[in-house]
Protein backbone atom coordinates (compact mmCIF):
# COMPACT_ATOMS: atom_id res chain seq x y z
CA UNK A 1 0.00 0.00 0.00
CA UNK A 2 1.14 3.54 -0.64
CA UNK A 3 1.15 6.01 2.22
CA UNK A 4 0.06 8.91 0.00
CA UNK A 5 -1.07 9.03 -3.62
CA UNK A 6 -1.81 12.48 -5.05
CA UNK A 7 -3.19 12.75 -8.59
CA UNK A 8 -3.59 16.07 -10.41
CA UNK A 9 -4.27 18.10 -7.28
CA UNK A 10 -5.22 21.70 -7.92
CA UNK A 11 -6.49 24.38 -5.58
CA UNK A 12 -7.04 28.03 -6.31
CA UNK A 13 -7.05 30.81 -3.72
CA UNK A 14 -7.08 34.50 -4.45
CA UNK A 15 -3.50 35.33 -5.48
CA UNK A 16 -2.26 31.73 -5.37
CA UNK A 17 -2.80 28.48 -7.20
CA UNK A 18 -1.55 24.97 -6.54
CA UNK A 19 -1.37 23.36 -9.97
CA UNK A 20 -1.67 19.70 -10.97
CA UNK A 21 0.39 18.12 -8.19
CA UNK A 22 0.95 14.37 -8.51
CA UNK A 23 3.21 12.06 -6.55
CA UNK A 24 3.25 8.71 -4.78
CA UNK A 25 4.87 8.14 -1.40
CA UNK A 26 5.37 4.40 -0.82
CA UNK A 27 4.63 3.06 2.65
CA UNK A 28 7.68 3.05 4.89
CA UNK A 29 9.26 6.07 3.19
CA UNK A 30 10.09 9.58 4.33
CA UNK A 31 9.27 12.44 2.00
CA UNK A 32 10.67 15.93 2.40
CA UNK A 33 8.60 18.75 0.99
CA UNK A 34 10.69 21.80 0.15
CA UNK A 35 9.65 25.19 -1.12
CA UNK A 36 9.93 28.88 -0.37
CA UNK A 37 7.33 30.74 1.68
CA UNK A 38 4.05 30.76 -0.22
CA UNK A 39 5.08 27.91 -2.52
CA UNK A 40 2.03 25.90 -1.48
CA UNK A 41 3.48 23.44 1.05
CA UNK A 42 0.85 24.10 3.73
CA UNK A 43 -1.93 24.11 1.12
CA UNK A 44 -0.75 20.72 -0.14
CA UNK A 45 -0.68 19.38 3.43
CA UNK A 46 -4.19 20.70 4.05
CA UNK A 47 -5.41 18.89 0.93
CA UNK A 48 -3.63 15.69 1.96
CA UNK A 49 -5.25 15.83 5.40
CA UNK A 50 -8.71 16.61 4.02
CA UNK A 51 -8.74 19.98 5.81
CA UNK A 52 -9.49 21.67 2.47
CA UNK A 53 -11.14 20.32 -0.66
CA UNK A 54 -9.23 20.23 -3.94
CA UNK A 55 -10.73 22.01 -6.94
CA UNK A 56 -9.63 19.04 -9.03
CA UNK A 57 -7.65 15.86 -8.58
CA UNK A 58 -7.70 13.45 -5.67
CA UNK A 59 -5.59 12.23 -2.77
CA UNK A 60 -5.58 8.79 -1.21
CA UNK A 61 -3.94 8.46 2.19
CA UNK A 62 -3.27 5.01 3.66
CA UNK A 63 -5.71 3.55 1.16
CA UNK A 64 -8.61 5.93 1.86
CA UNK A 65 -9.62 8.84 -0.35
CA UNK A 66 -9.63 12.08 1.60
CA UNK A 67 -13.08 13.02 0.28
CA UNK A 68 -14.57 9.80 1.66
CA UNK A 69 -16.45 10.03 4.99
CA UNK A 70 -14.26 7.07 6.07
CA UNK A 71 -11.24 9.35 6.03
CA UNK A 72 -12.15 10.78 9.45
CA UNK A 73 -11.67 7.29 10.92
CA UNK A 74 -8.51 6.82 8.83
CA UNK A 75 -7.00 9.87 10.55
CA UNK A 76 -6.69 7.68 13.63
CA UNK A 77 -3.57 6.30 11.88
CA UNK A 78 -2.07 9.72 11.19
CA UNK A 79 -0.06 11.93 13.50
CA UNK A 80 0.03 15.65 12.71
CA UNK A 81 2.44 18.38 13.74
CA UNK A 82 1.88 21.88 12.38
CA UNK A 83 4.18 24.89 12.54
CA UNK A 84 2.85 25.80 16.00
CA UNK A 85 1.18 23.73 18.72
CA UNK A 86 -2.30 25.07 17.85
CA UNK A 87 -3.56 24.10 21.32
CA UNK A 88 -5.26 26.72 23.53
CA UNK A 89 -2.42 28.24 25.54
CA UNK A 90 -4.22 28.00 28.88
CA UNK A 91 -4.00 24.19 28.78
CA UNK A 92 -1.13 22.06 30.04
CA UNK A 93 0.47 18.87 28.75
CA UNK A 94 -1.53 16.65 31.12
CA UNK A 95 -4.83 18.13 29.86
CA UNK A 96 -3.70 17.81 26.23
CA UNK A 97 -2.90 14.16 26.92
CA UNK A 98 -6.42 13.53 28.24
CA UNK A 99 -7.99 15.30 25.24
CA UNK A 100 -5.89 13.24 22.81
CA UNK A 101 -6.76 10.11 24.80
CA UNK A 102 -10.40 10.74 23.90
CA UNK A 103 -9.43 11.57 20.31
CA UNK A 104 -7.36 8.58 19.19
CA UNK A 105 -8.55 5.00 19.67
CA UNK A 106 -5.00 3.69 20.19
CA UNK A 107 -3.76 6.52 22.42
CA UNK A 108 -1.02 5.23 24.72
CA UNK A 109 -0.88 7.34 27.89
CA UNK A 110 2.26 5.52 29.04
CA UNK A 111 4.06 6.32 25.79
CA UNK A 112 2.95 9.95 26.06
CA UNK A 113 4.28 10.21 29.61
CA UNK A 114 7.55 8.59 28.48
CA UNK A 115 7.90 11.08 25.62
CA UNK A 116 7.16 14.05 27.90
CA UNK A 117 9.90 12.83 30.19
CA UNK A 118 12.34 12.21 27.32
CA UNK A 119 11.65 15.66 25.92
CA UNK A 120 11.89 17.25 29.36
CA UNK A 121 8.37 18.68 29.22
CA UNK A 122 6.55 19.52 32.46
CA UNK A 123 3.01 18.10 32.70
CA UNK A 124 1.43 20.90 34.72
CA UNK A 125 2.99 24.00 33.17
CA UNK A 126 0.59 25.85 30.85
CA UNK A 127 1.53 26.09 27.17
CA UNK A 128 1.65 29.90 27.35
CA UNK A 129 4.75 29.48 29.52
CA UNK A 130 6.43 27.13 27.05
CA UNK A 131 9.27 28.20 24.74
CA UNK A 132 8.76 27.59 21.01
CA UNK A 133 11.00 24.52 21.24
CA UNK A 134 8.93 23.08 24.10
CA UNK A 135 5.70 23.79 22.22
CA UNK A 136 6.92 21.93 19.14
CA UNK A 137 8.15 19.03 21.26
CA UNK A 138 4.72 18.82 22.89
CA UNK A 139 3.07 18.74 19.46
CA UNK A 140 5.45 15.96 18.45
CA UNK A 141 4.73 13.98 21.63
CA UNK A 142 0.99 14.09 20.92
CA UNK A 143 1.56 12.98 17.32
CA UNK A 144 3.72 10.04 18.37
CA UNK A 145 1.64 8.58 21.20
CA UNK A 146 -1.10 6.81 19.26
CA UNK A 147 0.83 4.32 17.15
CA UNK A 148 0.43 6.35 13.95
CA UNK A 149 1.40 4.79 10.63
CA UNK A 150 1.88 8.13 8.92
CA UNK A 151 3.31 11.30 10.36
CA UNK A 152 2.56 14.61 8.65
CA UNK A 153 4.72 17.52 9.78
CA UNK A 154 4.44 21.07 8.48
CA UNK A 155 7.61 23.07 9.27
CA UNK A 156 8.17 21.38 12.64
CA UNK A 157 11.78 22.59 12.96
CA UNK A 158 11.30 26.18 11.75
CA UNK A 159 12.65 28.79 14.18
CA UNK A 160 14.18 26.19 16.50
CA UNK A 161 17.75 26.16 17.75
CA UNK A 162 20.05 23.41 16.37
CA UNK A 163 19.92 21.34 19.58
CA UNK A 164 16.13 21.11 19.61
CA UNK A 165 16.09 20.44 15.85
CA UNK A 166 18.53 17.62 16.35
CA UNK A 167 16.41 16.18 19.18
CA UNK A 168 13.32 16.29 16.97
CA UNK A 169 15.14 14.64 14.06
CA UNK A 170 16.34 11.88 16.41
CA UNK A 171 12.77 11.20 17.47
CA UNK A 172 11.64 11.10 13.83
CA UNK A 173 14.41 8.63 13.04
CA UNK A 174 13.23 6.44 15.93
CA UNK A 175 9.67 6.63 14.59
CA UNK A 176 10.71 5.38 11.14
CA UNK A 177 12.60 2.35 12.45
CA UNK A 178 9.41 0.31 11.95
CA UNK A 179 9.11 -0.44 8.25
CA UNK A 180 5.39 0.29 7.86
CA UNK A 181 5.71 3.86 9.11
CA UNK A 182 5.88 6.80 6.71
CA UNK A 183 6.59 10.50 7.13
CA UNK A 184 5.76 13.60 5.14
CA UNK A 185 7.74 16.57 6.42
CA UNK A 186 7.86 20.07 5.00
CA UNK A 187 10.76 22.32 5.90
CA UNK A 188 12.82 25.27 4.78
CA UNK A 189 15.87 23.67 6.34
CA UNK A 190 17.10 21.49 3.50
CA UNK A 191 19.98 20.05 5.55
CA UNK A 192 17.43 18.52 7.96
CA UNK A 193 15.65 16.87 5.07
CA UNK A 194 18.90 15.65 3.54
CA UNK A 195 19.64 13.75 6.75
CA UNK A 196 16.19 12.22 7.04
CA UNK A 197 14.40 11.74 3.74
CA UNK A 198 14.11 9.04 1.09
CA UNK A 199 12.13 11.24 -1.31
CA UNK A 200 12.31 14.95 -2.04
CA UNK A 201 9.46 17.01 -3.45
CA UNK A 202 10.13 20.59 -4.47
CA UNK A 203 7.20 22.96 -4.77
CA UNK A 204 7.77 26.28 -6.47
CA UNK A 205 5.01 28.85 -6.96
CA UNK A 206 2.34 26.16 -6.64
CA UNK A 207 3.98 23.71 -9.06
CA UNK A 208 5.73 20.49 -8.18
CA UNK A 209 9.04 20.98 -9.99
CA UNK A 210 10.65 17.89 -8.61
CA UNK A 211 9.69 14.61 -7.01
CA UNK A 212 12.52 12.14 -6.85
CA UNK A 213 14.30 9.67 -4.62
CA UNK A 214 16.94 11.67 -2.75
CA UNK A 215 19.84 9.31 -3.52
CA UNK A 216 18.91 9.22 -7.20
CA UNK A 217 18.67 12.98 -7.25
CA UNK A 218 22.15 13.40 -5.81
CA UNK A 219 23.45 10.74 -8.21
CA UNK A 220 21.75 12.04 -11.39
CA UNK A 221 22.73 15.66 -11.02
CA UNK A 222 26.08 17.36 -10.62
CA UNK A 223 27.45 20.86 -10.12
CA UNK A 224 29.83 22.23 -12.75
CA UNK A 225 32.02 25.33 -12.45
CA UNK A 226 33.05 26.48 -15.94
CA UNK A 227 34.15 29.50 -17.89
CA UNK A 228 31.47 31.14 -20.06
CA UNK A 229 33.02 29.60 -23.17
CA UNK A 230 33.14 26.08 -21.74
CA UNK A 231 29.63 26.45 -20.41
CA UNK A 232 28.32 27.27 -23.90
CA UNK A 233 29.49 23.80 -24.98
CA UNK A 234 27.30 22.05 -22.39
CA UNK A 235 24.04 20.81 -23.97
CA UNK A 236 21.21 23.17 -22.95
CA UNK A 237 18.97 20.20 -22.13
CA UNK A 238 21.44 19.17 -19.42
CA UNK A 239 21.36 22.50 -17.59
CA UNK A 240 18.76 22.69 -14.80
CA UNK A 241 19.88 26.04 -13.44
CA UNK A 242 22.93 28.29 -13.60
CA UNK A 243 24.52 31.12 -11.68
CA UNK A 244 26.77 33.55 -13.61
CA UNK A 245 29.57 35.28 -11.72
CA UNK A 246 32.74 37.27 -12.35
CA UNK A 247 34.84 34.15 -12.74
CA UNK A 248 32.51 31.98 -14.81
CA UNK A 249 29.35 29.94 -14.49
CA UNK A 250 28.24 27.53 -11.79
CA UNK A 251 25.44 25.24 -12.90
CA UNK A 252 23.46 22.15 -11.98
CA UNK A 253 23.48 19.63 -14.81
CA UNK A 254 21.81 16.34 -15.54
CA UNK A 255 24.86 14.10 -15.81
CA UNK A 256 23.20 11.67 -18.21
CA UNK A 257 22.95 14.35 -20.93
CA UNK A 258 25.82 16.63 -19.95
CA UNK A 259 28.47 14.68 -21.87
CA UNK A 260 32.05 14.48 -20.63
CA UNK A 261 31.95 17.61 -18.46
CA UNK A 262 33.31 16.97 -14.95
CA UNK A 263 30.62 17.50 -12.31
CA UNK A 264 30.88 17.50 -8.53
CA UNK A 265 28.36 15.79 -6.30
CA UNK A 266 25.74 18.37 -5.31
CA UNK A 267 24.16 18.89 -1.92
CA UNK A 268 20.38 18.79 -1.73
CA UNK A 269 20.44 22.55 -1.21
CA UNK A 270 22.39 22.95 -4.52
CA UNK A 271 19.75 20.93 -6.35
CA UNK A 272 16.86 22.89 -4.88
CA UNK A 273 18.42 26.32 -5.42
CA UNK A 274 19.45 25.61 -9.01
CA UNK A 275 16.06 24.14 -9.87
CA UNK A 276 14.37 27.27 -8.51
CA UNK A 277 16.84 29.46 -10.42
CA UNK A 278 16.34 27.45 -13.64
CA UNK A 279 12.59 27.83 -13.30
CA UNK A 280 12.90 31.59 -12.81
CA UNK A 281 15.04 31.94 -15.93
Amino acid at each position, binding site marked *: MNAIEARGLSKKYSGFQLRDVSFTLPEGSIMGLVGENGAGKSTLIRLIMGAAAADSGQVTVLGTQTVSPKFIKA*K*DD*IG*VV*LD*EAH*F*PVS*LNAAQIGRIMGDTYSRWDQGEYARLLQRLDLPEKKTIKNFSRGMTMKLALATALSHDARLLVLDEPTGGLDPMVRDEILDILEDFTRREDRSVLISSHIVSDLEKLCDYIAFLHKGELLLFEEKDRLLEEYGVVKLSEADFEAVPKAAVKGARRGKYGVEALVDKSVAGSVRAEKPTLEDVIIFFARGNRE
Partner: protein
Amino acid sequence: MKALLRKDIYVILTQFKLLFLVMIIFSVIPGGLFVPFTFIYSTMLSGVSIMSIDEQSKWDSLALMLPYSRGQLVTVKYIMGWLALAVALVLSAVCQCLWAALGSVPLPDGFAAQLCVFSALALAVQAVTLPVNFCFGIAKGRIATIVVVAFIGALVGATMGEGDGFYTLIKVTSSIPGPVYTVLAAALCAATIPISVAGFRRRAEK
Protein backbone atom coordinates in the same frame (compact mmCIF):
# COMPACT_ATOMS: atom_id res chain seq x y z
CA MET B 1 -17.07 14.44 20.53
CA LYS B 2 -15.98 13.56 24.07
CA ALA B 3 -12.50 14.91 23.32
CA LEU B 4 -13.90 18.18 21.98
CA LEU B 5 -16.21 18.61 24.97
CA ARG B 6 -13.32 17.91 27.31
CA LYS B 7 -11.16 20.47 25.53
CA ASP B 8 -13.85 23.17 25.64
CA ILE B 9 -14.60 22.50 29.31
CA TYR B 10 -10.89 22.81 30.11
CA VAL B 11 -10.78 26.11 28.21
CA ILE B 12 -13.83 27.45 30.07
CA LEU B 13 -12.44 26.36 33.43
CA THR B 14 -8.98 27.81 32.81
CA GLN B 15 -9.83 31.02 30.96
CA PHE B 16 -13.34 32.04 31.84
CA LYS B 17 -13.59 31.85 35.62
CA LEU B 18 -15.16 35.31 35.48
CA LEU B 19 -18.05 33.90 33.44
CA PHE B 20 -18.91 31.61 36.34
CA LEU B 21 -18.55 34.40 38.86
CA VAL B 22 -20.95 36.64 36.92
CA MET B 23 -23.32 33.69 36.44
CA ILE B 24 -23.36 33.02 40.18
CA ILE B 25 -23.76 36.68 41.19
CA PHE B 26 -26.68 37.32 38.84
CA SER B 27 -28.34 34.02 39.77
CA VAL B 28 -28.12 34.81 43.48
CA ILE B 29 -29.58 38.33 43.28
CA PRO B 30 -33.08 38.10 44.85
CA GLY B 31 -36.17 38.67 42.72
CA GLY B 32 -34.93 36.95 39.58
CA LEU B 33 -34.71 40.22 37.65
CA PHE B 34 -31.33 39.25 36.23
CA VAL B 35 -32.31 35.72 35.30
CA PRO B 36 -32.91 36.48 31.57
CA PHE B 37 -29.56 38.25 31.36
CA THR B 38 -27.80 35.37 33.15
CA PHE B 39 -29.30 32.82 30.78
CA ILE B 40 -28.44 34.75 27.62
CA TYR B 41 -24.99 35.70 28.85
CA SER B 42 -24.09 32.13 29.86
CA THR B 43 -25.45 30.45 26.75
CA MET B 44 -24.04 32.90 24.28
CA LEU B 45 -20.66 33.58 25.80
CA SER B 46 -19.67 30.00 26.53
CA GLY B 47 -19.79 29.05 22.83
CA VAL B 48 -18.52 32.31 21.33
CA SER B 49 -15.75 32.84 23.92
CA ILE B 50 -14.31 29.40 23.27
CA MET B 51 -14.50 30.11 19.55
CA SER B 52 -12.40 33.24 20.05
CA ILE B 53 -9.80 31.26 22.01
CA ASP B 54 -9.81 28.63 19.25
CA GLU B 55 -9.25 31.36 16.67
CA GLN B 56 -6.35 32.88 18.65
CA SER B 57 -4.61 29.52 19.05
CA LYS B 58 -5.49 28.42 15.46
CA TRP B 59 -7.01 25.30 16.99
CA ASP B 60 -9.33 24.79 14.00
CA SER B 61 -6.39 24.31 11.60
CA LEU B 62 -5.18 21.42 13.74
CA ALA B 63 -8.64 20.07 14.59
CA LEU B 64 -9.51 19.73 10.90
CA MET B 65 -6.56 17.34 10.59
CA LEU B 66 -7.55 15.22 13.60
CA PRO B 67 -10.24 12.52 13.59
CA TYR B 68 -13.13 14.96 14.13
CA SER B 69 -15.83 15.81 11.63
CA ARG B 70 -16.76 19.40 10.84
CA GLY B 71 -20.20 18.65 12.28
CA GLN B 72 -18.64 17.66 15.60
CA LEU B 73 -16.42 20.75 15.68
CA VAL B 74 -19.50 22.96 15.25
CA THR B 75 -21.99 21.02 17.39
CA VAL B 76 -19.71 21.04 20.42
CA LYS B 77 -20.05 24.84 20.62
CA TYR B 78 -23.85 24.50 20.72
CA ILE B 79 -23.57 21.83 23.40
CA MET B 80 -21.29 24.05 25.48
CA GLY B 81 -23.98 26.77 25.31
CA TRP B 82 -26.65 24.30 26.37
CA LEU B 83 -24.52 23.06 29.27
CA ALA B 84 -23.92 26.63 30.43
CA LEU B 85 -27.67 27.32 30.17
CA ALA B 86 -28.43 24.20 32.21
CA VAL B 87 -25.99 25.32 34.93
CA ALA B 88 -27.45 28.86 34.96
CA LEU B 89 -31.00 27.47 35.02
CA VAL B 90 -30.35 25.16 37.98
CA LEU B 91 -28.38 27.84 39.83
CA SER B 92 -31.07 30.51 39.34
CA ALA B 93 -33.93 28.16 40.22
CA VAL B 94 -32.22 26.93 43.38
CA CYS B 95 -31.19 30.42 44.52
CA GLN B 96 -34.59 32.02 43.89
CA CYS B 97 -36.38 29.13 45.61
CA LEU B 98 -34.01 29.49 48.56
CA TRP B 99 -34.80 33.22 48.84
CA ALA B 100 -38.51 32.39 48.75
CA ALA B 101 -38.09 29.67 51.36
CA LEU B 102 -36.22 32.08 53.59
CA GLY B 103 -39.15 34.43 53.21
CA SER B 104 -37.17 37.39 51.87
CA VAL B 105 -38.49 37.56 48.29
CA PRO B 106 -41.48 35.52 47.10
CA LEU B 107 -41.25 33.60 43.86
CA PRO B 108 -42.96 35.47 41.01
CA ASP B 109 -46.16 34.00 39.57
CA GLY B 110 -45.44 31.33 37.00
CA PHE B 111 -41.75 31.21 37.90
CA ALA B 112 -41.21 27.84 36.21
CA ALA B 113 -42.87 29.09 33.02
CA GLN B 114 -40.68 32.20 33.16
CA LEU B 115 -37.57 30.07 33.40
CA CYS B 116 -38.73 28.18 30.31
CA VAL B 117 -39.37 31.40 28.39
CA PHE B 118 -36.01 32.88 29.41
CA SER B 119 -34.29 29.64 28.40
CA ALA B 120 -36.04 29.87 25.04
CA LEU B 121 -34.83 33.45 24.70
CA ALA B 122 -31.24 32.36 25.42
CA LEU B 123 -31.50 29.53 22.90
CA ALA B 124 -32.95 31.90 20.31
CA VAL B 125 -30.00 34.26 20.80
CA GLN B 126 -27.63 31.32 20.39
CA ALA B 127 -29.48 30.31 17.21
CA VAL B 128 -28.63 33.74 15.79
CA THR B 129 -25.14 34.40 17.14
CA LEU B 130 -23.43 31.03 16.59
CA PRO B 131 -24.19 30.78 12.84
CA VAL B 132 -23.05 34.40 12.41
CA ASN B 133 -19.77 33.63 14.20
CA PHE B 134 -19.23 30.44 12.23
CA CYS B 135 -20.04 32.09 8.91
CA PHE B 136 -18.18 35.39 9.32
CA GLY B 137 -15.62 34.76 12.03
CA ILE B 138 -15.31 36.06 15.55
CA ALA B 139 -14.50 39.70 14.72
CA LYS B 140 -17.63 40.29 12.62
CA GLY B 141 -19.59 37.84 14.75
CA ARG B 142 -18.84 39.88 17.86
CA ILE B 143 -20.39 42.96 16.27
CA ALA B 144 -23.48 40.96 15.38
CA THR B 145 -23.62 39.59 18.91
CA ILE B 146 -23.48 43.09 20.40
CA VAL B 147 -26.26 44.21 18.06
CA VAL B 148 -28.46 41.25 19.04
CA VAL B 149 -27.84 41.75 22.77
CA ALA B 150 -28.45 45.50 22.48
CA PHE B 151 -31.70 44.83 20.61
CA ILE B 152 -32.90 42.40 23.25
CA GLY B 153 -31.81 44.79 26.01
CA ALA B 154 -33.73 47.63 24.36
CA LEU B 155 -36.79 45.40 23.94
CA VAL B 156 -36.76 44.32 27.57
CA GLY B 157 -36.07 47.88 28.70
CA ALA B 158 -38.96 49.23 26.62
CA THR B 159 -41.44 46.67 27.93
CA MET B 160 -40.30 47.22 31.52
CA GLY B 161 -40.65 50.96 31.09
CA GLU B 162 -44.34 50.58 30.26
CA GLY B 163 -45.64 50.15 33.83
CA ASP B 164 -46.00 46.45 34.34
CA GLY B 165 -45.18 45.85 30.69
CA PHE B 166 -42.56 43.24 31.34
CA TYR B 167 -44.82 41.21 33.57
CA THR B 168 -47.74 41.70 31.18
CA LEU B 169 -45.54 40.27 28.47
CA ILE B 170 -44.69 37.35 30.70
CA LYS B 171 -48.39 36.84 31.43
CA VAL B 172 -49.28 36.88 27.76
CA THR B 173 -46.53 34.47 26.90
CA SER B 174 -47.54 32.37 29.90
CA SER B 175 -50.83 31.58 28.20
CA ILE B 176 -48.82 29.12 26.17
CA PRO B 177 -47.03 26.55 28.34
CA GLY B 178 -43.40 27.61 28.94
CA PRO B 179 -41.81 24.38 27.81
CA VAL B 180 -43.35 24.91 24.35
CA TYR B 181 -41.12 27.97 23.88
CA THR B 182 -38.08 26.06 25.07
CA VAL B 183 -38.76 23.17 22.72
CA LEU B 184 -39.38 25.54 19.79
CA ALA B 185 -36.18 27.49 20.52
CA ALA B 186 -34.18 24.27 20.91
CA ALA B 187 -35.54 23.11 17.55
CA LEU B 188 -34.57 26.46 16.02
CA CYS B 189 -31.08 26.08 17.47
CA ALA B 190 -30.72 22.55 16.12
CA ALA B 191 -31.94 23.75 12.72
CA THR B 192 -29.15 26.32 12.55
CA ILE B 193 -26.41 23.71 13.09
CA PRO B 194 -26.23 22.82 9.36
CA ILE B 195 -25.97 26.57 8.55
CA SER B 196 -23.08 26.86 11.02
CA VAL B 197 -21.39 23.76 9.55
CA ALA B 198 -21.70 25.21 6.04
CA GLY B 199 -20.29 28.56 7.24
CA PHE B 200 -17.45 26.82 9.06
CA ARG B 201 -16.64 24.77 5.95
CA ARG B 202 -16.65 27.87 3.75
CA ARG B 203 -14.34 29.79 6.07
CA ALA B 204 -11.98 26.81 6.43
CA GLU B 205 -11.63 26.74 2.64
CA LYS B 206 -10.41 30.34 2.53
